[in-house]
C-alpha cells in the first residue's frame, strides 16, 4: 500500500498547524470579501491561532439550505464548472459547486484513498454506484485517473449485466455501494460463479462498513475491502483516507476538524467554489489522539452515526420529514404511523382510523398502492405500506 502525497499525508504536526493557520486566515479574508452571509457574521472577528476558531459562528445544514441555490458560493457562477445536488435537512435540496481547481483537488484527494487501498496504474477500475442520489462517482473517476488507472464509469442495468462486465472488461477494482456488493455476491452464488474466476482484487465501498458485513463482503467476493468516509456537503470521496490499519485519517491539509458535543465540525481550508466555515455535519464521531503505524499524521476519525433524523433505505438517504410529507399528501389529517427499514425496503405502518377506514377492500388497496407509488416516485424508495390497528 502506498502513500499518494507523502508530503501532505505525513506532514509533521507543527508544519501542518502552520499550514492550517495560513489557510484559515486566507479563507476568512475570502469569505469576508466574497460571501455576504459570512461577511455579516464574521466581519469584526480576528483569528490569530487555531484555537481562535472557536470564537467563530457555526454554519449549519439549515444555513446552507437557506442559501439555496448559490448563496454560499465564493465565486460568480461563470467560474463554477460543475454543479450537483445533494440532500439537505428534511429532504431539501442543496447545491454543491466546483471550480476547475476544486475538481483537480478532488481527484488528488480521492487518489490518496485509492493509493492507500493499493491501486496502481495497472488496475482497471469500475465505478458503479447506482447513480441516483449518490454524487461521488465523478470524484472516484477523477481519483482513479490521477493514479493513471483505466476507468470504466458504467452502470450495468441489472446484476447479470454487472457479472458480464466483470467477466469481459476484467476490472481489478470495483467501486460500489455495500448494497451492490451484497447483490453481486448473491448473484455469483445464484449463477454458481466462482468469485476467483473474476479478476477483482479490491472492492472499494462508498461508505464505512465494519464487522460482520465487512467480513461477509470480503469472504463472499474474495477481495480486499476498503471503505470511504466522506461528507456530501464537504467532499465525498476525498475527505479522509482509510489506511491499511483500517483507520480513517482526515486530509487535514484540506479540512480542519473539531468535535463539539460529539458532533463533527468541519472547515474547508482549500475549497474554492463553496468554502464552509465550521460546518456542523450532524455526524457523531470520535477522534482518538493516537499515532498510527501507517505513518499518516492526519487525525484519526471514528464515525459513529448520525445525530439528526436522517437514515438510509438501502443506499438512499431519507429524513423522517419526507415520509410525513408523502403521507400528508394522501391523508387529510395527521395519522399516527411509524416506520422501519427492512433490507432495501421502507416499511410504513399507518394506524387504521375511522377517517381512512373503508369496508371496500379495493378502496383500501388502491389507497395503499397510490402511497407505495408515491414513495417510489418522490423519494426513490421501495415501500411497503401496512394498515395496523
Amino acid at each position, binding site marked *: 500500500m502506498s502513500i499518494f502525497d507523502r508530503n501532505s499525508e505525513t506532514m509533521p504536526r507543527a508544519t501542518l498547524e502552520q499550514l492550517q493557520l495560513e489557510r484559515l*486566515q486566507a479563507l476568512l*479574508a475570502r469569505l469576508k470579501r466574497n460571501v455576504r452571509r459570512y461577511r455579516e457574521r464574521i466581519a469584526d472577528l480576528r483569528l490569530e491561532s487555531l484555537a481562535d476558531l472557536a470564537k467563530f459562528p457555526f454554519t449549519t445544514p439549515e444555513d446552507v439550505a437557506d442559501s439555496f441555490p448559490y448563496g454560499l458560493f465564493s465565486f460568480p457562477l461563470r467560474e463554477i464548472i460543475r454543479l450537483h445536488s445533494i440532500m439537505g435537512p428534511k429532504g431539501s435540496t442543496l447545491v454543491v459547486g466546483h*471550480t476547475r481547481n476544486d475538481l483537480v483537488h478532488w481527484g488528488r484527494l480521492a487518489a490518496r484513498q485509492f493509493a492507500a487501498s493499493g491501486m496502481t496504474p495497472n488496475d482497471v477500475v469500475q465505478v458503479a454506484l447506482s447513480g441516483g442520489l449518490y454524487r461521488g462517482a465523478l470524484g472516484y473517476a477523477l481519483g482513479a485517473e490521477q493514479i493513471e488507472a483505466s476507468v470504466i464509469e458504467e452502470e450495468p442495468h441489472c446484476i447479470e449485466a454487472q457479472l458480464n462486465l466483470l467477466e469481459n472488461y476484467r476490472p481489478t477494482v470495483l467501486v460500489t455501494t455495500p448494497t451492490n456488493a451484497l447483490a453481486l455476491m448473491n448473484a455469483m452464488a445464484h449463477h454458481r460463479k466462482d468469485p476467483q474466476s473474476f479478476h477483482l482484487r479490491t472492492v472499494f465501498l462508498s461508505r464505512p462498513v465494519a464487522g460482520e458485513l465487512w467480513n461477509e463482503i470480503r469472504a463472499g467476493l474474495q477481495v480486499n475491502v476498503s471503505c470511504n468516509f466522506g461528507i456530501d456537503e464537504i467532499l465525498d470521496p476525498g475527505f479522509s483516507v482509510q489506511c491499511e490499519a483500517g483507520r480513517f485519517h482526515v486530509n487535514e491539509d484540506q479540512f480542519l476538524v473539531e468535535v463539539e458535543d460529539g458532533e463533527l465540525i468541519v472547515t474547508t481550508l482549500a475549497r474554492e467554489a463553496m468554502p464552509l466555515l465550521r460546518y456542523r455535519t450532524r455526524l457523531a464521531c470520535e477522534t482518538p489522539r493516537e499515532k498510527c503505524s501507517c505513518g499518516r499524521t492526519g487525525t484519526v476519525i471514528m464515525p459513529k452515526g448520525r445525530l439528526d433524523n436522517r437514515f438510509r433505505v438501502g443506499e438512499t438517504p431519507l429524513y423522517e420529514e419526507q415520509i410525513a410529507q408523502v403521507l400528508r399528501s394522501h391523508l387529510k389529517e395527521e395519522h399516527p404511523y411509524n416506520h422501519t427499514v427492512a433490507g432495501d425496503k421502507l416499511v410504513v405502518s399507518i394506524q387504521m382510523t375511522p377517517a381512512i377506514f373503508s369496508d371496500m377492500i379495493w378502496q383500501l388497496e388502491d389507497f395503499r398502492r397510490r402511497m407505495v407509488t408515491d414513495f417510489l416516485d418522490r423519494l426513490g424508495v421501495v415501500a411497503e405500506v401496512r394498515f395496523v390497528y
Partner: protein
Amino acid sequence: MILQVKNLRCGYGSLEVVHGVSLHVRQGEIVGLLGGNGAGKTSLLKAVVGLLSPWHGEVMLNGRPTKGQPAWRSVSNSVVLVPESRKVFADMTVRENLILGGYHNPDRKMDLDVVLELFPRLGERLGQLAGTLSGGEQQMLALGRALMARPRLLLLDEPSMGLAPLMVKEVFSEIKKLRDLGATVLLVEQNAAATLRIADRAYVLETGEITLEGPAGDLLHNPEVKRAYLGKGHKEVEE
C-alpha cells in the same frame, strides 16, 4: 522550516499596513508573494529582516524567534534581502560590490568564482562601475552580491521591476537556476505570471492580508488570480 511568520502586524506611525499575516518557507523552495501596489509586500519583507519592527506576531528564522534583533543580524542568520530597484553601489565596481556582499563570508574570494560562473556576464564587467550596467545586469549583480553572503534564505523584492520583458525572462531563469542549486527563495512580485511559472508555492497579499495561498500551479488556474493579476486570456497572449 527556514522562515515561519505568524500573525505579523506592522506599519508606519499609526498606520497598520500588514494585518496579521502568516506564511512559511521550507528549505529548497521558491515561494512567491504576489500583490499589487500598496498591498504590504515590501513592509512584510522589511519586518522579516528587522528593518521594520513588528507590532505583533512572530517571525522565526530556522526555528528561532527574531524579535528585537537588528537588521544586520539577519545576514549572520543567513538571510539576505535583495531590495527593490536593485540598489547596487553605483560608484563601486562590479567586483567591489560582490566582495562587499561577502563581507561576513571568510570564503568570499572562493565564492566569487562560483558567482561569476553563475552570472558570466558579471565576469565580463568586473572592473566596470555598477552604475553603468543595464537594468538587467544590475539585477544580476544584486543577486550575485546577495549570493556572496551564502544565504540560506534569499528574499527578492520585485526583481522584475523596471526591466524589459526579455530581461525579466532572463532574471527569472537565473532565479530558477538558484533553486536548482539548492537555494531557498521568497520572491516578492507583482508579475504574477512569471512568478507562478517558477515558484513552488505562492501567497497572494491584498491590502495587508493573505487572501490566497497554494501550489503555484493551482494559483495559475485560480479564477481570482486570473482576473486580478494575469488578465483575461493571458494564456493566449503568452502563446
